[in-house]
């Protein structure tokens, strides 16, 4: 990933600080299964009906709002997520348009239906806790994943090589604790600041150092005095040294979180072929435990791959959205049950939407505008914007809502100085009530 690598390097070489790092990994949060050389994104082992019990942990006292970003990586097909009820949708998609009878109809989505996999979100919408931003995307869209990912990660401000949340973290008077800014899967690019890289955790079970080695030894690799003979100003050596300090801190903090998540996941009964525990469900369960676990978490970025649906998209897209809806509703139920939801805002993102016309592979190609959902107890609920097939931009949905509108809301939520971080406020659509 060329642009991001360079940007990270420049951030390091700029001398502000040589840091550990976050990765452009697109691997998902998975519950590892044995004998596994790489699990496909959503088919991991195996737990039905997770996260129903109340955490034994008391809710953290909320002096500080929390933001959870949920990234649908690969370019979510907005128009099958939120199919317009009128216009050319069905004509342009003879094969992959969703049957009208399958759509979920709800007043909260205006002149659109909702993908049947997202039906669980209707309860949240009925409760006034869901906002839908239809037609979100940057002006002058680019159909490259990497250009678009970069623009989203940096709020379209390309001068400093940092993520927009990383810039906010840089403004805080005190360094965040180990799990203060954590990416669960994905790249963590949005968290990259000049002072610290953010923590990346890719799975629940393997995030602990081996018993052979003490935390003291591991910490010594990073925090004992730097050295002259091996190039003490080598930014990569400095980054590797810092990675050990960060990792020891993060594993120590994460240990009880992982235990709590595991305790919520019942053993699967033999012969139970219920739905697998997907990447969104796991990631959001971890996020809930972090928020309840009083570890100082302010931002969590969850990223799940698989939305680049050029071919045979129907089943794959349905599974991903189903996992998303289940993860979001369980997350919210977990927090709500202990009264911790008021301080939490959730927003979904994706680098672009997809072409309105289908291709010949039962899928669709890269497009422009997409759709974001925002969840919270203090939001302006309902639909903003629209997916309008009558006014396309080169075959794509036309961007109507600048992503920086969403970012402005998120930064307000965190109490940040919006102008300092993304240049100027974007208040075209009210999101926070």
């Amino acid at each position: 990933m060329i642009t991001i690598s360079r940007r990270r390097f420049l951030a390091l070489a700029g001398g502000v600080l040589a840091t550990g790092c976050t990765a452009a990994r697109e691997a998902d949060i998975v519950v590892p299964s044995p004998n596994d050389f790489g699990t496909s994104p959503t088919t991991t082992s195996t737990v039905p009906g997770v996260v129903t019990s109340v955490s034994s942990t008391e809710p953290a006292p909320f002096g500080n709002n929390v933001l959870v970003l949920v990234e649908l990586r690969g370019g979510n097909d907005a128009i099958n997520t939120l199919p317009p009820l009128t216009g050319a949708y069905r004509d342009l998609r003879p094969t992959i348009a969703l049957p009208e009878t399958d759509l979920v109809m709800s007043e909260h989505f205006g002149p659109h239906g909702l993908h049947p996999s997202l039906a669980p979100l209707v309860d949240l919408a009925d409760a006034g806790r869901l906002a839908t931003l239809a037609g979100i995307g940057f002006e002058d869209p680019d159909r490259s994943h990497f250009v678009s990912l970069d623009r989203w990660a940096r709020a379209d401000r390309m001068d400093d090589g940092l993520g927009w949340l990383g810039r906010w973290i840089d403004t805080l008077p005190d360094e965040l604790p180990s799990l203060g800014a954590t990416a669960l899967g994905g790249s963590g690019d949005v968290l990259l600041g000049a002072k610290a890289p953010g923590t990346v955790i890719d799975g629940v079970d393997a995030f602990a150092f081996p018993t052979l080695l003490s935390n003291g030894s591991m910490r010594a690799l990073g925090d004992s005095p730097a050295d002259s003979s091996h190039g003490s100003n080598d930014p990569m050596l400095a980054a590797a040294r810092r990675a050990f300090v960060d990792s020891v801190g993060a594993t120590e903090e994460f240990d009880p979180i992982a235990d709590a998540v595991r305790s919520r996941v019942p053993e699967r009964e033999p012969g139970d072929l219920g739905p697998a525990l997907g990447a969104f469900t796991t990631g959001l369960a971890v996020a809930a435990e972090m928020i309840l676990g009083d570890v100082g978490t302010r931002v969590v970025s969850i990223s799940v791959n698989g939305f680049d649906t050029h071919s045979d998209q129907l089943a794959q897209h349905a599974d991903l959205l189903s996992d998303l809806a289940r993860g979001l509703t369980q997350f919210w139920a977990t927090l709500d049950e202990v009264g911790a939801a008021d301080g939490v805002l959730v927003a979904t993102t994706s680098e672009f939407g997809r072409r309105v016309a289908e291709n010949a592979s039962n899928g669709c190609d890269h497009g422009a505008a997409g759709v974001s959902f925002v969840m919270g107890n203090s939001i302006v609920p309902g639909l903003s914007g629209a997916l309008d097939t009558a006014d396309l931009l080169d075959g794509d949905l036309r961007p109507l809502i600048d992503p920086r509108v969403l970012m402005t809301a998120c930064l307000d939520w965190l109490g940040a100085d919006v102008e300092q971080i993304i240049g100027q406020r974007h208040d075209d659509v009210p999101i926070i009530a």
Partner: protein
Amino acid sequence: MNQQRAVGWLHRRAGLGLHPDDLAAAVARGAAAELAAISAPPTELADPWAALELDPQDGGRADAVLAWIGALHGSTQPFQDRRTLLLHGWLVSAIDKVRFPELMVEQIRLFMNNGGDSFPDLLRSITTNPAMLVYLDGRTSTAEAPNENYGRELLELFALGVGHYTEDDVQSAARALTGWIVRREDNLAQFVLRRHDATPQTLLGVAGIDDVDSVISAVVDHERHATFVATRIMREYLGELTGSAASDVIEALRSAYLDGDQRLDPVIVRALELGLEDLGGPHEMGSMVLAPIPWLMICARATGVGLRALQRGGSGAFRDMGQVPLLPPGVAGWPAGVEWLTTSAVVARTRLAATIAEATDQSEPLAIAMSDEDFDLAAQHLGLGDSFTTSTMSAIRSTTDPAARLAIALVSPENLLA
């Protein structure tokens, strides 16, 4: 020049590490001779999967990965194997979408067998490679509905880079490449004329483009292509250089590409020569983070630990470290640099280092050097020059357990780098 350091650098940067006995012999030859020797085309090409009947289901996937890891572990052609890994992360396909292990393996064989040939020819071959036709949807791209997935990535990620083509170019390439399918009965690529759009397209300003050959010719004749290749090789072998250091290197590598019949090997060799010059002189280029697979091979080969012990480390270890063979995370391949060192990945590498240390035979030179507390010799055995860093030394001295000490050496910041 310090040959101990230079030869160690060479085998860490462009190879898969060496057993201490082999490293000593290489040091005796010297870095220049060693570079010439390892970059010479091998006389015999082994096929890691020759004896395997690959189950199309999940079992075959693990078998295919393991056979490749085994071949890397015993490699006598580490330069070529690193080039294959480079190509696997550059002209990317991934088994999660391709599904059939045999197709992925056939693509890796293409890189092994033809990676040293003309790069334009390799681009021609990969364009109709069955795994690629599946991965980037060429097999379903028709005159009626061209799928632009491959055309876009060919221009953006394989040969030119963002900003050097237009959306019209993407569509022209897609149209000219329509008509290829993968036959169900034998998984071979086939051109089907009635699915092909024979209308001549204009691509990158070149008219009359209507097939694989003309598409690739237009792309590789583009002024930007050699710079793109040079930049890619620089990033792979010398890291993310900046400023005039980068532009000088790119210019040199560009010439090496154009003067070397557009083959990659002369470019890689030139990059390594420049790296060795820097190592012996100004030492301004800095370190690179080793990707997980080369790092693992360096550890296993230096300790003499066998493949079976690595398997005990858990086959999920590759995923946890962030690099599963045959499964690049996306069409742009794997990340690079500090992006390999996430909190999660550092923990995973440490777990694997502990497994390797515990499996190391006490009669191995590296184990002996560690137990003799001759830590400078241990650093030399790993190809790290003359000593460990002072912080690694303090970590090693924080324990008396020999396995723990070896594990610390294997996962030390300097051994994660090259």
